[in-house]
């Protein structure tokens, strides 16, 4: 279980999070929605200890993350898969080597036969052909890089998966593929997931619950139906803005196809 308890964070004079609390139950997928720059990625980085809150507590698996020592944090992180916004792949390593980095158990990491099998299995789970393993990140499309990033995150068989904007920068077709993948991994692996996104439609599709982060606070938490039925002005404003963006994108797509 992941618990954020009254966490606050500021960078210089900019208050990014102000008393944010959220619980994510085991096996649950929660989407953290909100406009750009509102602190969604900061929240995610606090869950695996990449950032520390100024105040409040982050509890994962019963462990108080900000108080963990370096080796304890490394142990906890081996149970948390993190999918970075732009993949964060190592350009000088092949896809197979990148995925192998995700095998956090040292004995398994040294076992080359196990690693080869695990890389193949992870590529299958993210719908990539086995021959992709020998390619370099520069040879992959944006969508493929994201999927390799997901493959690396699941290679260590984590209990928790954190997705940082998994569909940003992708066209609608590829975004749908990634959303489908998140759903599939949730069903096949039974992991507890937190998905940070500003894509309302995708979040409603993949998440059991959605939390809206607005002006440094959690403004609403609930199922997709509850969020859509919310009378909160901030929630309505955010949803309307997303709808407008969708219409603009759809018009753009129509114009491109018509031209």
């Amino acid at each position, binding site marked *: 279980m992941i618990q954020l308890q009254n966490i606050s964070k500021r960078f210089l004079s900019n208050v990014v999070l102000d008393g944010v609390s959220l619980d994510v139950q085991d096996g649950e997928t929660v989407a953290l929605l909100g406009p750009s720059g509102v602190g969604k990625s900061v929240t995610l980085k606090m869950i695996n200890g*990449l950032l520390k809150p100024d105040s409040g507590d982050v509890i994962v698996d019963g462990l108080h993350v900000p108080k963990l020592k370096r080796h304890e944090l*490394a142990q906890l*992180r081996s149970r948390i898969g*993190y999918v*970075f916004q732009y993949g*964060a792949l*190592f350009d000088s390593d092949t896809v197979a080597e990148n995925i192998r*980095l995700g095998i956090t158990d040292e004995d398994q990491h040294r076992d080359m036969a196990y690693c080869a099998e695990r890389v193949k299995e992870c590529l299958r789970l993210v719908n990539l052909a086995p021959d992709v393993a020998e390619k370099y990140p520069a040879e992959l499309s944006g969508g493929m890089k994201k999927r390799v990033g997901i493959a*690396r995150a699941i290679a260590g068989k984590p209990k928790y998966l954190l997705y940082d904007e998994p569909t940003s920068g992708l066209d609608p077709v590829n975004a749908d593929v990634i959303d489908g993948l998140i759903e599939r991994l949730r069903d096949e692996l039974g992991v507890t997931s937190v998905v940070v996104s500003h894509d309302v439609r995708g979040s409603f599709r993949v998440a059991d619950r959605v939390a809206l982060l607005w002006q440094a606070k959690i403004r609403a938490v609930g199922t997709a139906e509850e969020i859509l039925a919310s009378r909160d002005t901030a929630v309505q404003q955010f949803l309307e803005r997303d709808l407008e963006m969708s219409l603009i994108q759809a018009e753009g797509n129509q114009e491109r196809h018509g031209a």
Partner: protein
Amino acid sequence: MRVTEQIDALESLGRSPITHLLLPRIIAGILVIPALTMFANATGILVGYLTAKGSLGLTYADFEYGARYFFRPLDLWYSLIKSYCFAGAVTLIPCYIGYNTQQGAEGVGRATTTAVVSASVTILLLDALTTKLLLGVK
């Protein structure tokens, strides 16, 4: 790597960026730069011989005699010690600054400039210091 989150990726995988990223670069620099310096010393002697032979008509025996006559082992040690100091400066300083880069592409540009300037100034200072310590020049 900081800006494109690869360092965060290593940390989130429970791996140390220092052993995975920084240490190989520092070890490579400290091994290769002195080796390159020795190679440059050898090339200098060879080119010196070829120039002496081409322009002055010196024989190999004359050149060898002169080279041995003026040779001081301290010169070799001096260049080796200096190269280790410089190797430390050109690997450690940029690695430290790069590792702590922040604020996106602008931060990378600033960090690159800072790294080059800091390493260059440190080399000048180390050059003065090693000259003073090893050769006793006032």
